[in-house]
């Protein structure tokens, strides 16, 4: 059979770094082909080359047996190559149909688009309302908009970049059904991921990239998780310690019926959030993004100071209306999910970024910055957390996601917080860095820190947390021990369907 896509000897160099070094790759019609690799392995560059966003320095691309020189994404689309990006490009205040219409190369009537859309959604079982406004959609639905937009072009090759990073387990399974159906109709799919679990479920072919080179092409269904990760990273990932039971230490943080109206149009109202966080435990907050996580985090961190003082109590002091600096002084650390532009200033050096939260009298005296102390602290973080950076004067934006995250976590942890709030600590982070960050959180917990972990990755939550809670539409579910919870149960709760409090009480009585 003629290959749909054939790459031979694709190379691309950025400065002294070979992002791609002589990559060969063949994708047959109707094949779901996985591209596996750590962040920085060259997956994205390769995709951009196929989609015409980047020109290779050397190598050939043949599509449907013909040698092609892909000029730009428009050219790629006209050949029949479609791509769904990890980060969506949708207008929140337009409807689904309008968004799809805007994304097409040439304009044609909204009616035609709606008609075609209905056909596709029906054919592939993709639930999507053409008239719904994008801001009202969940992340999974937004991704469906992107997929439908891609399918509208009848692609011969569909490229998906880390499509499951924002989906609930149920939504992932739904997506897989769609992808299998697409493949059975002859569409080739190039599936980029660094998640080792989902690849054997979906693909028979898997190309593994490391440092810009093809390391192996394997059938993932005949490989183990360990062998795949060995291929991907060149070494075993550090093994995870077993989850241990809650320490049951002092109560560090109490949130009492925290209720906050949304601050902007597309926000979420927080309704009657109550929980206690004790020293020596990790409490996990699961949920699909956009269900009040960012609102809760801002209220806890002090970026949003509208909460009543008593609704948030840190180490017995009401802090609802205080500034982040006062909260830090009381022992609160916070690692938000956005690194560039929130937990770090992209254009400033790592040393300067230390000062963002670590600006006590050791670093700043009478308003003057102690440059040497700041640089020394940055070096200490770099060394202790194995941050790959040229030196402490490298700009934050020059680091890869994983390395910058290690730096940010290190910065907060080295200030010895009593309560640490962490959001999506491994979002866009390579497997190795993720393992280091997880290990660091466990160590911190064992030293008696109280940790609140907000994440969309259930695997991460189950690995790390002692207790779990689900947030949906701005409300908290009951809190349960993670050893008593199942993925299915949490997945169901994520859509807001959890038993009423009385029912839980009864259950507890029954078991007691």
């Amino acid at each position, binding site marked *: 059979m003629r290959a749909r896509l054939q790459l031979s000897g694709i190379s691309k160099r950025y400065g002294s770094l070979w992002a791609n070094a002589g990559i060969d790759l063949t994708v047959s019609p109707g094949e779901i082909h996985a591209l596996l690799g750590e962040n920085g392995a060259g997956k994205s560059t390769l995709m951009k080359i196929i989609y015409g966003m980047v020109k290779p320095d050397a190598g050939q691309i043949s599509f449907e047996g013909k040698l092609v020189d892909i000029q730009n994404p428009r050219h790629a689309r006209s050949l029949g190559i479609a791509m769904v990006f990890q980060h969506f490009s949708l207008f929140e205040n337009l409807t689904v149909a309008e968004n799809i219409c805007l994304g097409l190369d*040439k304009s044609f009537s909204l009616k035609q688009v709606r008609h075609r859309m209905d056909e596709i959604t029906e054919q592939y079982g993709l639930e999507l309302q053409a008239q719904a406004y994008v801001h009202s959609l969940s992340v999974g639905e937004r991704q469906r908009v992107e997929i439908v937009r891609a399918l509208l072009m009848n692609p011969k090759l569909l490229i998906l970049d880390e499509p499951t990073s924002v989906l609930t387990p149920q939504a992932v399974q739904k997506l897989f059904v769609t992808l299998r159906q697409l493949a059975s109709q002859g569409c080739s799919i190039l599936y980029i991921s660094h998640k080792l679990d989902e690849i054997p479920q979906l693909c028979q072919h898997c190309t593994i990239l490391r440092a810009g080179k093809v390391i192996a092409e394997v059938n993932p269904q005949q490989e183990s998780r360990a062998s795949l990760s060995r291929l991907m990273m060149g070494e075993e990932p550090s093994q995870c310690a077993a989850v241990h039971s809650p320490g049951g230490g002092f109560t560090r943080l109490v949130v009492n019926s925290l209720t906050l109206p949304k601050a902007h149009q597309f926000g979420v109202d927080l309704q009657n959030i109550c929980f206690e966080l004790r020293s020596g435990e990790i409490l996990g907050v699961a949920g699909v993004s956009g269900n009040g996580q960012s609102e809760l985090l801002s209220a806890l961190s*002090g*970026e949003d100071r509208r909460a009543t003082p008593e609704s948030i109590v840190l180490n017995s002091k009401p802090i609802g209306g205080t500034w982040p600096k006062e909260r830090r002084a009381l022992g609160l650390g916070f690692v938000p999910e956005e690194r560039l532009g*929130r*937990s770090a*200033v992209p254009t400033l050096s790592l040393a300067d970024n230390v000062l*963002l939260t670590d600006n006590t009298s050791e670093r700043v005296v009478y308003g003057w910055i102690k440059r040497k102390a700041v640089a020394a602290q940055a070096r200490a973080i770099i060394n202790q957390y194995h941050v790959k950076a040229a030196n402490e004067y490298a700009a934050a934006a020059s680091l890869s996601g994983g390395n910058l995250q290690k730096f940010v976590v290190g910065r907060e942890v080295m200030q010895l917080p009593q309560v640490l709030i962490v959001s999506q600590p491994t979002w866009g982070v390579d497997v190795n860095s993720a393992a280091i960050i997880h290990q660091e959180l466990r160590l911190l917990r064992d030293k008696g820190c109280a940790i609140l972990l907000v994440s969309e990755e259930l695997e991460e939550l189950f690995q790390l947390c002692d207790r779990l809670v689900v947030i949906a539409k701005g409300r908290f579910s009951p809190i349960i021990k993670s050893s008593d919870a199942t993925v299915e149960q949490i997945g169901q709760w994520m859509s807001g369907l959890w038993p009423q409090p009385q029912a839980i009480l009864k259950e507890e009585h029954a078991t007691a």
Partner: protein
Amino acid sequence: MVVGSPLLALSITVLMGIALFLMVGKDPLKGLLVFFYEPIKNSYALTELTIKASPLILIGLGLAIAYRANVWNIGAEGQYILGAIFAAGVSLTADKQTGRWILLVIFFAAIFGGMLWAAITALLRDRFNANEILVSLMLVYIAQMLLSYLVYGPWKDPEGFNFPQTKTFDAVTQLPRLIEGFRMNISVVIVVLTVIVVYLFIFRSFAGYQLQVTGLAPRAAQYAGFSSRKMLWIALLVSGGLAGLAGGLEVAGPLNQLTPHVPAGYGFAAIIVAFIGRLHPVGVVLSGLLISMFYIGGELAQSRLVMPRALTGVFQGLMLFNLLACDTLIHYRLKKIKGSKQSRDSLKKIQVQA
């Protein structure tokens, strides 16, 4: 790139200047000499250059701080006028018995005047979220009206033959000159000290750090808990204060009296100075010298080349325009998109399917 872009912009400006001189039938070499050689040809010319450059650099330094914080103070001209008015107010009280200490009062009054004017902008922005660009710009015109009112009204010199001007100030209010025989005065020393202080403020002080973080990444400033309101006030008060000081130094230096012609466009030219200087204190000094060459060159062009003084503005404008173009075109490339046959074909295909 940081240094390359302004240098490239300068060379393009020179080339366009040559073209301009050729178009109006003047000798381009003579034209260039007037702008780029005459202002620095001897020690006298150099000292005159410092007189022009001092206010530009002072205002430019303040604006550099404000712009680093993403606070767009466009009304330095108004703050400069208020500084001049306040300085003049103090100077008018001087008489034969007054001591040299009055100079210090003049400085502080000038700084206060500029800050006061900038504070109006800060207050409106802080309280009502009014756009600081528009407010500070419109306040320039109000400042001009206020100046006119004073020199046509209460402050008019009774022995001034009804000209709209104050009396010339007492000698004691005048800045001491640095060298005998030259007009250069101690404002040069004040500028040098200010450059050092601003440098330390931006790169060594925590307040300067907070200001820049607020400008570079507002969300990071929120995360760190830096108050954006406080930064707004600092940015406007510092830039307003320095513009006011520049106005005061002019009154106590070259002007020696208040006339409706106090605003010479320094406040607006300083915006260009700040940007060409890349918002860096040392850069601002260099670009301030360059822009003041344009000022002097424009004046000389009137007598030597019989060309209008508006040439100064033309060169300033060309310089800023070229800088912006260089900055943009270094990072982005123009690309012609053809309505290719391919995309038309793919469109047809979709329509057939639909």
